[in-house]
């Protein structure tokens, strides 16, 4: 019953966002262009590298492109559902706009993170999937029923990005301005744009535990191509669970610290 209530709210949010996007049609084209260029830059970087070598830490060019396809789709999912909400997150706290959300009979965090949906980025999900499909065979992906797992792993990537981004964003309750922290998130996010096995042990450990950016694209791509070791699955579950608990704890602490600037 409660879930149906939340789903209904979300349906209304999507409808409102669709109306908003329909008003700014040129925005759709420009947003798509930005993402296509971003994808082109990332692909170009590897194209240049592979013009000089045949493999990169055991990854062939086709495998890296397969990874990029998974990564772009996973990131596009995050962009569709959450990115704009995180950009607006600091305003909620600094301007006291969170007040109104706290008075609603639903979880304030649900409202805070579901207000804006970037429907234009849906195009990028398909673009990423197209790259994945294009390079799946040459990369060694076995296909068949395994394609169903792509959806599962994209969901893992989305949840991971959400949990990491939240940790960075919630610092605004303590730092007042979150611009630099957000920027720092995107600097670290660059670690997600490369396969995790190319990193030295210390960095790899970091992006598989404390800052699990590898869960966004790299681990899903590896899982789809070769499968993971049992301990890697355990690590994935434990890390995501720890982040859930930590985020929940920080949210409660943050609300105690919230000063309600508008009141």
């Amino acid at each position, binding site marked *: 019953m409660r879930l149906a209530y939340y789903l209904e709210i979300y349906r209304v949010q999507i409808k409102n966002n669709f109306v908003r996007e329909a008003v700014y049609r040129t925005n759709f084209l420009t947003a798509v262009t930005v993402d296509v260029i971003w994808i082109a*830059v990332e692909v170009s970087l590897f194209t240049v590298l592979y013009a*000089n070598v045949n493999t990169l830490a055991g990854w062939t060019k086709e495998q890296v492109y397969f990874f990029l396809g998974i990564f772009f789709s996973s990131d596009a999912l995050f962009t569709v559902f959450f990115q704009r909400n995180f950009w607006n997150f600091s305003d909620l706290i600094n301007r006291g706009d969170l007040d109104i959300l706290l008075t609603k009979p639903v979880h304030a965090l649900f409202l805070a993170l579901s207000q804006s949906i970037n429907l234009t980025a849906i195009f990028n999900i398909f673009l990423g999937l197209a790259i994945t499909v294009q390079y799946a065979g040459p990369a060694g992906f076995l296909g068949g029923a395994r394609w169903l797992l792509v959806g599962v792993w994209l969901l893992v990537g989305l949840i991971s990005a959400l949990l990491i981004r939240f940790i960075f964003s919630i610092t605004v309750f303590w730092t007042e301005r979150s611009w*630099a922290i957000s920027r*720092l998130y995107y600097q670290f996010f660059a670690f997600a744009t490369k396969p995790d096995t190319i990193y030295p042990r210390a*960095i790899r450990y970091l992006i598989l535990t404390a800052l699990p950016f590898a869960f966004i694209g790299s681990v899903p791509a590896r899982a789809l191509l070769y499968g993971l070791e049992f301990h890697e699955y355990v690590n994935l579950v434990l890390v995501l669970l720890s982040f859930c608990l930590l985020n929940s704890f920080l949210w409660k602490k943050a609300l105690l610290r919230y000063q309600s600037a508008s009141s």
Partner: protein
Amino acid sequence: MNLQWRIAALKNGFQDATAYRVEFLFEILGSAFVPAAIQWVLWYALFQIGGATEVGGMSYSDLVHYTLVSLLFSQIRGGDHDFELQEMIRSGHLSNYLLRPVSVVEFIYIRGVASRLFIACLCLLVGSGIAATLGLSPLRLIGAMVLALIGNIIHYQIGAALSTTAFLWEEAYSILMVKNMVVNLLSGELIPLNLFPASMQWIWKSTPFYLYVFGPTQFALGKWTYLEYLNQLGIAVMWMLGMWAVIRLTWSLGMKRYLSLGG
């Protein structure tokens, strides 16, 4: 030339950038060390994991030196004050600046460049340490810094010209984002541009972006002769003058369409 308002704008920009010191520190650390770490990781993957001995005519130590030195100049090329210009046009706040007896494009640049000048001084200090370790000439380092600062001006000029598309399409955010993404790759911030295969070298050579990071790094590392440096400095000045003319043209055309809504 009235220096008084220019010095005041510079002072104001510096105070603004450092008002939130933790943010400022995060910005410097994030934008310096994370990209450098990612570059190093690529070299690590190619040489230490992949067992390569030379890539694009460069050894592991050549590439690590490139990463270390390019770090100094990639800090200077940035600055998001072109985004401020497009936001002013979009929101109508430009009107407030048009009333002032100063050039709005120059005012925003001077205010925005203050933090970059501070970072440039820091980079020179750090750079002298790196120069001593790597046996680089301090004179070359200063010359490279001059080229990087001219690169900063060109970068802003291109942004200022592109931001006038906001007069046409209400916002120029996306186009500026695209510019920054292309700059990321073609400035030599991600990888040395000589890794581009011969058939693709024309791409970076036909833009001024290589003058931001790759050019200064090449000169500081002693890969460019003094004659080559002077030649490139001349090219940089030509770009600067050309972009000055483009700014004059685009802004005069844009102002004819400006409606000052919401200002």
